[in-house]
């Protein structure tokens, strides 16, 4: 199940299953809502740090932290805000660390272990944070908090360092947490944050709907909602395509009709996708359905980027065997040729066919 599907499957239950969680208390009274919302408009950044300072001066550290967290997400990248947030989080977590350690060690459960993991991650002890987050997962694999702690640590790293592995980590662990407790307030907020970092305001807007109802004055909800309204709408709901767009900075040209026709292998279908993930050729019998093309394009982009990062060199080819058929791919460095047949016995001949296409392209 994909991350958006996992969330959709039960988002309507958000109220009953923790739509308001420990971080969703309104910052202060109703009268501040408009002023708070104004802070997240594009001109509001200059007022945000002074406001945070005022809250700190009034010893409202929790509120200051919530506001600054929201500001950092809203105005990303914002080095000054990030720096101030790191300082504030460190102060807070240093203060609470003994209490969190006590809770995790004495009344050990998934929630206390994941809170400690969060604190350690903010204090820069990544190894300790990982240990406690894993312990939370092992203690109760059906509780979302452990997965959320890992997802949040990855999200922090993804935002700060644009790290692709961390990005994939966010998606994997948030998917799991969303599956375990659809509608969980923090899952939804982290998911909306991730979607906005991937420039997907349409999807983020849908995720935010239950939060807007449950916690309309929450600074993070206000920040995310403002950002979602500001970004141009995405034209895909495929999270892996969105990730590839973030990673490569380019998107395939879906409007281009394939310029060339490939020869038809017997009983099979062929497609050629170039390195920009755009369909450039097909055989006559191949499906040109948008979803098929998008899926093949995502496979091409994903394998091109993943294999070197896994340590097995540039992508050469892949074979996928299912009960209902085979799907093959072969790269010649400039394009990926895909072949499909419903007969498993065609695997060798189809691979040879793809190979010969690649060779022709090279000699051309």
């Amino acid at each position: 199940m994909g991350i958006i599907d996992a969330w959709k499957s039960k988002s309507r239950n958000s109220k009953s299953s923790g739509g308001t969680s420990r971080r969703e208390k309104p910052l202060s009274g109703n009268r501040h809502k408009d002023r708070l919302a104004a802070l997240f408009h594009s001109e509001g950044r200059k007022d945000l740090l002074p406001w945070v300072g005022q809250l700190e001066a009034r010893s409202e550290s929790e509120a200051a932290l919530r506001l600054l967290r929201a500001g950092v997400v809203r105005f990303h990248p914002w080095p000054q805000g990030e720096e101030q947030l790191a300082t504030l989080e460190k102060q807070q977590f240093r203060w609470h660390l003994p209490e969190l350690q006590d809770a995790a060690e004495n009344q050990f459960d998934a929630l206390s272990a994941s809170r400690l993991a969060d604190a350690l991650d903010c204090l820069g002890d990544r190894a300790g944070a990982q240990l406690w987050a894993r312990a939370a997962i092992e203690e109760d694999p059906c509780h979302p908090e452990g997965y959320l702690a890992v997802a949040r640590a990855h999200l922090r790293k993804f935002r700060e360092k644009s790290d692709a592995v961390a990005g994939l980590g966010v998606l994997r662990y948030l998917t799991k947490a969303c599956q375990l407790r659809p509608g969980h307030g923090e899952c939804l907020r982290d998911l909306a944050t991730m979607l906005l970092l991937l420039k997907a305001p349409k999807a983020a807007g849908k995720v935010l709907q239950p939060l807007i109802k449950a916690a309309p004055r929450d600074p993070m909800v206000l920040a995310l909602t403002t950002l979602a309204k500001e970004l141009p709408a995405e034209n895909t709901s495929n999270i892996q395509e969105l990730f590839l767009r973030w990673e490569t900075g380019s998107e395939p040209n879906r409007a281009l009709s394939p310029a060339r026709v490939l020869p038809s292998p017997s009983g099979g279908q062929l497609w050629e996708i170039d390195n920009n993930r755009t369909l450039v050729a097909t055989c006559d019998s191949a499906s040109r359905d948008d979803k098929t093309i998008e899926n093949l394009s995502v496979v091409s982009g994903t394998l091109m980027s993943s294999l070197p990062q896994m340590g097995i060199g540039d992508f050469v080819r892949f074979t996928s065997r299912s009960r209902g058929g085979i799907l093959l791919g072969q790269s010649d460095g400039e394009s990926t040729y895909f072949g499909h047949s419903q007969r498993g016995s065609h695997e060798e001949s189809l691979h040879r066919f793809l190979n010969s296409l690649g060779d022709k392209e090279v000699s051309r």
Partner: protein
Amino acid sequence: MKQILQGLNEVPGVLGSMVMTEDGMVVCSALSSSFDGEVVAAFASNARLCIGKAAVQCGDGIPHEIVLEGEEGSLILLDVEDATLVVITHAGLELNTGMLEIRSLARKLRGILEIQTS
């Protein structure tokens, strides 16, 4: 499970193996120090997910076996009872008998996971 993975790593050409859940959580790992389990799991589950979607869209159903070949090695993903066995090999193992041994050990692993879930 660890024993089976260690046995798998003794197959000529195999560089390491691990078992992960369908959503990419590492269950058991026997990878050498040159591979990071989290990195392999992240990319392997991402690749498995997108190839799976494409195969389903083509009408094949969810793949039970995926072989990804790179210039310096291969990654084999075998479906084992709600989990995935990930095997990293030298380039070209698909062409020799190593693949048969890997499949046979995957069947053993499937048996263990069937017993554990029943």
